[in-house]
């Protein structure tokens, strides 16, 4: 059986657990779900209609089976606040979230790679210690506070970037980029701090190996050894972790979308929570979690591809 199929089958139980946990979490809400969703001043007939629509009078196990069946078919239900299919709402917002997460990752990689290599080549020098201290500080700064500081600096004091909102890539690529810069920097800063430590540690580890000494011993230039030998080996774990962090960035976008008023999946989830639209909440949570699980799977596959020593046989 091909590796991709075997790994996909292996991830299926995790996806099932994710779906089950999501279903259970939103079933244990104390009180009548229909009443909670419609509010205390809702008319009894509306509450009764919603109860019937959700099948709340039927056993939980039947509802669970039905929900799973619909999920497999891509039917995530209909939002009570938007009066639209949740799958449609999510599809509209997914490009925003993916744009932010990928841009943040790009920023993190572009900054952390050279910084990590410079720090490793000058290990324990003032430059290295500054990079280490900076990364420690970067890890401590909450992404949403970084977002607020960027807004204060580059949208208010120096009005270079827009304060809020989003423009689709297809309608105006330049404006799309302008609206993404600050959210991507805010989200990418923390990841940069984490990645720079990893790049440094990984390069430092490789620099101390015998094959590097041999390469230098036979007269190869330092820069050549670094580029052709050290980086190729050092970047395997970095690539893996960077891909894995893309999944975490999906979680991070929830809060950054709120700071910058981006109409993404995270904002949809939060609006679902604020308006007690549990169908939206359930759908958004499952989609984000399944994307997270599939990203982890693709990292596994990528890892096996990049490093031939790793097999899943």
């Amino acid at each position, binding site marked *: 059986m091909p590796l991709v199929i075997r790994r996909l089958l292996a991830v299926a*139980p*995790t*996806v*099932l*657990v*994710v779906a*089950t*946990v*999501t279903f259970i*979490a*939103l079933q*244990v*809400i104390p009180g009548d779900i229909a009443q909670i969703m419609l509010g205390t001043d809702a008319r009894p007939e509306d509450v009764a209609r919603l109860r019937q629509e959700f099948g709340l009078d039927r056993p939980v196990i039947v509802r669970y089976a039905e929900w799973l069946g619909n999920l497999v078919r891509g039917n995530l239900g209909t939002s009570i606040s938007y009066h639209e299919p949740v799958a449609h709402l999510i599809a509209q917002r997914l490009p925003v979230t993916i744009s932010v997460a990928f841009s943040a990752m790009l920023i993190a990689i572009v900054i952390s790679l050279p910084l990590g290599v410079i720090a490793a080549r000058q*290990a*324990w020098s003032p430059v290295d210690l500054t990079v280490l201290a900076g990364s*420690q*500080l970067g*890890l*401590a*700064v*909450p992404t*949403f*506070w970084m977002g*607020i*500081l960027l*807004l*204060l600096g580059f949208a*208010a004091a120096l009005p270079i970037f827009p304060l809020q909102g989003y423009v689709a890539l297809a309608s105006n690529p330049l404006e799309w980029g302008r609206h993404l810069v600050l959210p991507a920097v805010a989200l990418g800063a923390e990841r940069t701090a984490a990645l720079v430590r990893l790049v440094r540690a990984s390069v430092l580890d490789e620099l101390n190996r015998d094959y590097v000494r041999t390469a230098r011993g036979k007269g190869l230039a330092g820069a050549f050894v670094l580029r052709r030998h050290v980086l190729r080996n050092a970047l395997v774990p970095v690539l893996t972790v960077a891909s894995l962090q893309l*999944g*975490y960035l*999906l*979680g*991070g976008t*929830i*809060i950054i979308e*709120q*700071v910058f008023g981006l109409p993404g999946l995270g904002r949809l*989830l*939060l609006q679902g*929570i*604020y308006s007690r639209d*549990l169908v939206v*909440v359930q759908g958004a*949570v499952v989609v*984000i*979690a399944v994307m*997270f*699980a599939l990203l*982890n799977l693709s990292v596994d596959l990528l890892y096996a591809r990049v490093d031939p020593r790793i097999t899943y046989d």
Partner: protein
Amino acid sequence: MALTEQHPWRAMPAAPVVVPPRRRRANLPLIIGGTLVCLIAGFSILAPVLTSYDPAAIDPAHRLTPPGPGHLLGTDRLGRDVLTRILYGGRIAVAVGLVAVVIGAGGGVTIGLMSGYRAGRLDALLMRVVDGLMAFPALLLAIMVVAALGPGHIQTMAAIGVVLIPVFARLARAQTLAVRGQEFVLAARALGAKDTSIVLSHILPNIAGPLLIQSTVAFSGAVLAEASLSYLGLGTQPPTPSWGGMLQEARDVLFVGPWMAIWPGVAIAAAVLGWNLLGDGLRDLLDPRLRHGAT
């Protein structure tokens, strides 16, 4: 014997190590981290002594007062003293962190110990559930729990505690698996000790070091998560002061009262930095392999 060779530093717990004086260096992360943590905890506890303002008292006459002699860090849009709210907000951060870590470590270590010690079907089942929980981005899982339980700092403690369970469970299981076959465990079993006694009296003390380090890291994560949830309006609810909640309130007056958006963020970053450094310092202190390192 083979097992003790694999982990000699765990098998010989109390052997004193002679380290040449020239290699001894001050454990800076431990000192800086410990100082920051003590300062934040101290300021929070002594808040009523350090400030005469009430953190919830509204004062319309002094709303959005810039930092100055009367209000060192200014006031918010309801005229409340920002410094006072930061000091009292520290209490929430410390309390949420503490309770969340107790829930996460309590639940996770219990699952990890059972899973690692018993192995077999129970291990497989528990680890599938743990994998499922780990398949959620942490903030998403916390948001989902809060969505189910409703907003508030008690619910936030529970939500963050649930998020921490899988990490502790994985760590405790891995450590238990490494220790369970060692000679001191086999000796205790040969002497007729019960499973509960072996786990609690022999295995747990031997895996406590890594769990303690993880607890400090988890604490910084909990402070960050509480601030994030409160910023989203799902954590600590007004008028109770919390650092994340203060940043949320600052959002509406960002350009007329920027001080409101700066100092609570500094407090969060200082707390997270403190706990992270403390974790790094403890790791250096408790892991002899690092303590011997020439670098």
